[in-house]
């Protein structure tokens, strides 16, 4: 059972994530934040802000611990308490945001019309995940340390294709459920509105304001001497 949940499920989820996002990207039209702000804006303000700020901070915390555990190792004593408290605070913020968003989604007539099954499923999963995460932080102190000693080696083993589930197998069930739901969410990402975080528009910072597109290169098209050089076979042949 453990092998299935902690050894097989992550790979299934990751495969689904990669294949699904690529497929959905290739089919073009469907990547969008699917914002419902046009239909309802007042209640969205606090809910969306709380959720996004909360989840992004928590996500970054997990990610940095995973990518650069050495940053967290020296933390100890009172700063450990501060890190944990901050973590719980942002977790609660994300949970509050998610609850408000969910409540808005199921009570506002207009927003209901742009809600589909996957929105409900993923929002419930996220809420459960946030609650479990907060419970873990309260019940199993100093998570930022045992995360490094038990979970990060496990996650590293997953991503280096030598799964070693010994670390996770000895964890409390609460943490185990947290991991299972995490991989479930990762696997579901391509089928939900969550895909929009993959196309977060950071490139906007660097691009020039105005964008002009040409059908053909106006400088070279009139050059009669140019041979058929940078010519590619069209994709539909």
């Amino acid at each position, binding site marked *: 059972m453990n092998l299935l949940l902690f050894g097989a499920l992550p790979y299934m989820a990751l495969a689904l994530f990669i294949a699904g996002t690529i497929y959905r990207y290739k089919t073009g039209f469907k990547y969008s934040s699917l914002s419902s702000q046009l239909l309802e804006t007042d209640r969205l303000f606090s809910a969306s802000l709380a959720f996004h700020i909360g989840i992004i901070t928590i996500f970054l915390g997990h990610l940095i611990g995973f990518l650069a555990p050495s940053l967290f190792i020296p933390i100890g004593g009172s700063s450990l308490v501060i890190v944990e408290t901050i973590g719980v605070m942002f977790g609660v913020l994300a949970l509050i945001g998610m609850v408000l968003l969910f409540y808005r989604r199921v009570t506002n007539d207009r927003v209901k019309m742009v809600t589909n099954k996957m929105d409900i499923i993923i929002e419930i999963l996220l809420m459960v995940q946030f609650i479990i995460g907060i419970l873990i932080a309260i019940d199993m102190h100093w998570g930022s340390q045992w995360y490094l000693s038990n979970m990060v080696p496990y996650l590293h083993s997953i991503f280096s294709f030598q799964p070693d589930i010994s670390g996770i197998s000895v964890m409390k069930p609460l943490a185990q459920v947290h991991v299972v739901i995490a991989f479930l969410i990762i696997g579901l990402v391509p089928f939900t509105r969550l895909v929009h975080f993959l196309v977060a528009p950071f490139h*906007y910072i660097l691009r020039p304001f*105005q*964008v002009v597109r040409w059908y053909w290169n*106006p400088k*070279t098209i009139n050059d009669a001497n140019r041979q058929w050089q940078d010519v590619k076979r*069209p994709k539909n*042949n």
Partner: protein
Amino acid sequence: MNVRAQMSMVFHLDKCLGCHTCTVACKNIWTDRKGAEYMWWNNVETKPGTGYPTKWEDQEIYKGGWERTKSGKIKLRGAGKLKGLMNIFHNPNLPVIDDYYEPFTYKYLDLIEAPQTDEQPTARPISLITGKPIDIKMGPNWDDDLSGTPDFARKDVNLKNLTPAEQEAMFQLEQMAFYYLPRICNHCINPACVASCPSGAIYKRGEDGVVLIDQSVCRGWRMCITACPYKKAYYNWNTGKSEKCLLCYPRIESGQAPACMHSCVGRIRYLGTLLYDADKIEEVASSEEKDLIANQMDIYLDPNDPEVIKAAKANGIADSTIKAAQKSPIYKFVKEWKIALPLHAEFRTVPNLFYVPPLLPVMASVTQNNKSDGSELNPISKHWSDEWLYDTSIDEIFGTIEQARFPIKYMANLFSVGDTELMTEKLKKLMAIRIYRRYKTVGDISKEKSDRALAEVNLSEEDAEGLYRLTSLAKFDERFVIPAAHREQAIEMAESTADVKGSTGMGFREPPVRGL
């Protein structure tokens, strides 16, 4: 000089009768879909009035367009790189559906299927979003013909620097006047929507300057809705993508007029090519408010100038496009006769839709109290005489313009960044043409007076004749001079035709993906 071609437009407001045929033609072709019901890529507004979406011109509310900073640069008012990314989770400046109106239909089937009762069955209005019955509060042309009403006309944003007395005079019962303002996307030279798009989905086409939203790249970050000061980018709540007027590009690529223009009953619309200097865009957009229009006029190049033609050819602009630019009705209206003005140039997007201001509401019947023979409009029977209109018979040539019943200031707020002199100049030109034609056809005005009128507004007899012809008699091919897109060049660029011989079609070039 970096010459580019731009499809641009002139709407002749004196000829607009407010029939909304353009609107319906556009709606039927492009926005008759779920999520797009509330979008009117083309709409006709009554001025004075609040427009659609309500008070769209008030950038204190909607934060659209560019503003000039103290250092003389420009920045987006409500979007931009930092602001756009900060507000991405919730855009505080986004209009909501109620600022437009909740789209609705009627339960027509109830009329047929209702059981027999003593009362007539009714078709209740239902929301096209939720499908539930609603009370209709607003529609796309809700203020149609409602000049003088407190809810609409008196809340017109362009009344802002008129004195209360001037405003009151506008809305006196027998003085009241209005005119129509048809609006589509301006396909600006310095588009704020393009600049605000975090995904880079919105782009201006190099060949003809049409501004489009790439639907496969749009992620629904909603910044273009805020940034467009004309509120001509719309968010489709069903697909989660933004959409806007595409100037019927499939039609203009094959040399046909856009649907709104083709269907125009009053023949008020003109479409043609202008050549402009892309090196001067930033300079023009960031010029001081009083120079905005003059500088914008300078960005458009003379298509008959050999230097310009040479530069255009070096930039790959096709000969047919240059030829179209030389015959362009827009060039004549905007540059040669200088009679058309952009709408709200102070938004600094350098719009390419120009309006010939309406003379009728400004001038009509103003002379009722100043007739040279002292006669007045009969206060009881309100007997109407055609002489009240455009009284060209009085001695003073433009005597009536200064006593216009529409304050020139109001017109100037719309079309000339508040410059009343510029506005008066355009109205005088319109008046001069009328005096000239009256001399020609009716003959009760002397040649001297007609010559004097034309001379005062710097128009030659030839100009006057051309203006008259293009305004009143122009046939389809004169009103629309559209060079077809050179698809054959695009295909050659994409592949060797020999390579794909015998296979389906000629293939297509992957980036940029075009079309819906």
